[in-house]
C-alpha cells in the first residue's frame, strides 16, 4: 500500500481470558498493512495482548457481561490503540518488576504486563474514566518503515 489512508478498526472482546489474541491478531494485521517492520509488529502484539489481559482481568474483573473495546486508529505515521474497559482505571503505576526480588520471594512472580507495555511501544498512558467507567489505556507505536 503506497499511500495509507487514515482509518479506524474496532474490535469488541468478551471479558474472557484468551480473547486478547483476537485483538492482538487484528492489531498485527493493521500494522502489517501500514508497513510496520516485523519486529515492531511483534512488539505491538505483546503490548496489545497485555493491555487486553489487564482490561479483562483487572478492569472488567472477568465479568463476561462486560466487554472490552479495542479501537485502532491508523494514521500516516503511527498506530494508536485504545483498550477500553468498565473499571475505575489505574490509581498509581505499579513498581517496575525486579527479577532479583521475585527470585528471592520479595515480590510476586506476576505484575509484568504494564512494564512490558511501556517498554514495547513508543507511548503508553492510562486514563481513568469519569464516574469510574470507560477507563482506557492508550498505546502509540510509530511507523519506522522498512527501507
Amino acid at each position, binding site marked *: 500500500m503506497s499511500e495509507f489512508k487514515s482509518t479506524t478498526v474496532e474490535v469488541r472482546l468478551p471479558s474472557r481470558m484468551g480473547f486478547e489474541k483476537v485483538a492482538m491478531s487484528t492489531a498485527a494485521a493493521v500494522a502489517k498493512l501500514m508497513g510496520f517492520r516485523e519486529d515492531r509488529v511483534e512488539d505491538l502484539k505483546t503490548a496489545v495482548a497485555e493491555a487486553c489481559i489487564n482490561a479483562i482481568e483487572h478492569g472488567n474483573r472477568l465479568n463476561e457481561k462486560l466487554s472490552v473495546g479495542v479501537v485502532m486508529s491508523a494514521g500516516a505515521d503511527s498506530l494508536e490503540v485504545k483498550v477500553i474497559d468498565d473499571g475505575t482505571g489505574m490509581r498509581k503505576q505499579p513498581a517496575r518488576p525486579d*527479577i532479583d526480588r521475585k527470585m528471592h520471594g520479595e515480590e510476586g512472580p506476576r505484575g509484568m504486563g504494564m512494564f512490558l507495555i511501556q517498554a514495547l511501544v513508543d507511548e503508553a498512558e492510562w486514563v481513568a474514566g469519569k464516574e469510574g467507567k470507560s477507563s482506557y489505556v492508550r498505546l502509540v507505536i510509530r511507523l519506522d518503515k522498512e527501507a
Partner: protein
Amino acid sequence: MQSETKARVDQLTSPAGHPVTVLRFEGDIASTSKDAVLGTYQGLPKETAKLILLDFTKVDYINSSGIALVIQLLIEAANSGQKVYAFGLSAHFTKVFTMVGITKYAGLFPSQAEAVAAL
C-alpha cells in the same frame, strides 16, 4: 481461545556426559498453562534432574502470566539446586525474556544443539 499447552519430557546426555532433562512445550504459555509448565517440572525427580532445558521451539504465544509461571519454575529450581536453560525462543520472546531479567537466572540458547553443547 487459548491453545492448550502440551508438555513432554525427554532425557539427553550432554557431550560432557551430564544427564540433561528437556521439557518440551507446545501451544500457548499463559495463565492456563500451570499444570503443563509447573506440574510437569514438579514431576521431575529432583535428585537426578539437575540440568533442565526448556524447549520453546513450538510455542507461539507467551504472555505475562506465562512468564510468571517460568519465573516460578526458576524459583523452585534454584531452591532445589537445579540449573535451568532454555532454547527455541523467537527473537521477540528472547528480547522479552531479557527485558524482564530471566536471562540472569536461565541461560538462553538459539537451539537445542547449542544448549546441550554448552552443558
